[in-house]
């Protein structure tokens, strides 16, 4: 038991620290909690104006999830999102590794300009280019197919991966690569056999972010792909579950929960990678 004199010191952080943090945590989590609660509520309770909306009083139902699975193309959208995200991530990480390696390690004419070009495209928001890009996608004959997204997502993923990996490669000492080159490895072999095994955390970080950004992408998917069965998760839930003036809030929230789930799972397992990827661009 601590003496009464030491009590204030132990309790103080409760008031000066944990109490002020609470509203921030509440603000961040409440909408997500409410999304989950809504998706499990029976319609009778959901649309009862007088019932307290925060809790489920009349039993949990999985009806909204069932309806979502049976009556909508939800799982097609899920698979589409998965295919597009995996393909775009693989392409972007590979291109990013190659470009980052030459920017971080090799000397060549135009390196500065290319570095600046990567930086500028890193800052280009998708909403600047979606109109002309839809024309390009059209001319390539890719509109209304998932390929349109596999090809266009790397436009914002490659600059991000390159920037992040370039920073990471620079933290790896060059000496080990030089040893390998003295032993007769060429640049490509050195990259694959020596640098990449050391740079695994950086590559994981780039892949996680590329996957998350692809999975969450909305504008390009909305513009380039219109058949309902080819839509990705974010667009499908938004545009196919709202019919006219009727909103199926239970199904919408169930879709939003399931659509966020893969990202949340990845996030729980790789929290530290997300934090380091987030701060890499700004602090380094």
């Amino acid at each position: 038991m601590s003496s009464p004199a030491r009590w204030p010191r132990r309790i103080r952080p409760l008031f000066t620290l944990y109490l002020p943090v609470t509203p921030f945590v509440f603000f961040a989590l409440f909408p997500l909690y409410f999304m989950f609660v809504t998706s499990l509520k029976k319609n009778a309770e959901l649309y009862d104006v007088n019932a307290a909306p925060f809790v489920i009083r009349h039993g949990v139902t999985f009806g909204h999830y069932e309806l979502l699975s049976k009556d909508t193309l939800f799982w097609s959208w899920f698979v589409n999102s998965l295919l597009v995200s995996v393909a775009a991530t693989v392409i972007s990480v590979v291109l990013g590794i190659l470009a980052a390696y030459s920017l971080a390690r090799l000397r060549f004419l135009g390196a500065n300009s290319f570095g600046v070009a990567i930086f500028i495209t890193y800052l280009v928001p998708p909403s600047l280019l979606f109109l002309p890009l839809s024309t390009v996608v059209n001319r390539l004959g890719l509109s209304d197919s998932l390929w349109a997204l596999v090809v266009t997502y790397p436009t914002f993923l490659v600059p991000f991966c390159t920037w992040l990996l370039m920073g990471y490669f620079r933290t790896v000492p060059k000496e080990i690569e030089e040893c390998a080159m003295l032993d007769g490895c060429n640049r490509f072999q050195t990259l694959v056999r020596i640098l990449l095994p050391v740079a695994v955390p950086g590559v994981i970080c780039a892949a996680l972010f590329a996957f998350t950004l692809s999975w969450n992408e909305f504008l390009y998917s909305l513009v380039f792909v219109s058949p309902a069965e080819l839509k990705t998760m974010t667009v499908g839930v938004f545009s196919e579950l709202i019919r006219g003036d009727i909103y199926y809030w239970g199904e919408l929230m169930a879709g939003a929960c399931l659509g966020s789930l893969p990202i949340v799972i990845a996030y729980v397992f790789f929290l530290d990678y997300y934090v380091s990827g987030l701060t890499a661009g700004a602090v380094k």
Partner: protein
Amino acid sequence: MQLKTANGDVAKLAARGEAPTRGLSDVLVRDTSVAYAFIAPAFFLLLFLVAYPFVLSVWFSLSDARVGETGSFVGVDNFRRLLSSGIFQQTLQNSMVFTAAALTAKTVFGMALALLLFRVARFKRVIRGAVLLPFIVPTALSTLVWWWMFEPLYSVVNWTLKALHVVNRDIPWLSDPYLAMFAVILVNTWRGLPFFAITLLAGLVAIPRELYEAAESDGAGPVGRFWYVTVPLLQPVLAVVILFSAIFTLADFNIVYVLTRGGPMNMTHLFATYSFALGLQSGQIGQGAAVSLFLFPILLGVVFFQLRLVRKAATYE
């Protein structure tokens, strides 16, 4: 000029990467071809799918192109028409209000949250993880729940306010123009706050402890330490975060499109949503491209200042 000096460290770093035993010219020739081979895929991707569309966008903005028609050159007609159109002027004003308010909120609350997180010792990972979550979840989907929370009849926000007797009738969150603007700013802040907090936190961690001890022994209180140690040393990180967020807040599409679609009465249209409405929904690609190009000068400004900051950081190392 600015750009070259700014990225000088790239060249310096590359210059040190030669293998020691071979002749310089030999290595240079070999490295150059390897470098071009490595860069080619990324280069052509960005050339065909970023640079070319950008040029196309400039062409569209100077033409009367419509969906399915190439259109002909009309000079700066689109820009002239936009600048005299009431809806575009409203969009311009909305964009400024939205960006200024959201950035201010994110900076102030992000700073406060970062300072709190810095001192959190118990449940550190859980609290940080929870606070970062809104940034990770798909925005289009999380905005749906905000829409549901502001729904006219069943709004949980109104229910709570009525239960607490703050108001006695429903507040029309998304149908009143000013409240709708407040709502989109709130959701943007909700989503962007974690980025500010976590990045500023990383900046705080990087400040040497000795500086605080020195300030304390000179008699500086908590406010003095914050103002004379934390703020000046955090300034570069703060600048990068604000610049970075400025462009993506200004270019926001998802939140406005899902929550209000630019309404009521165009009072929440931003460049992206208005460009979408003009270019795709009414098929006036020329006008739409002109609207989205208003993002470009701001993008260039942000790039310019960011690169200057990078150069500054490089000289301090």
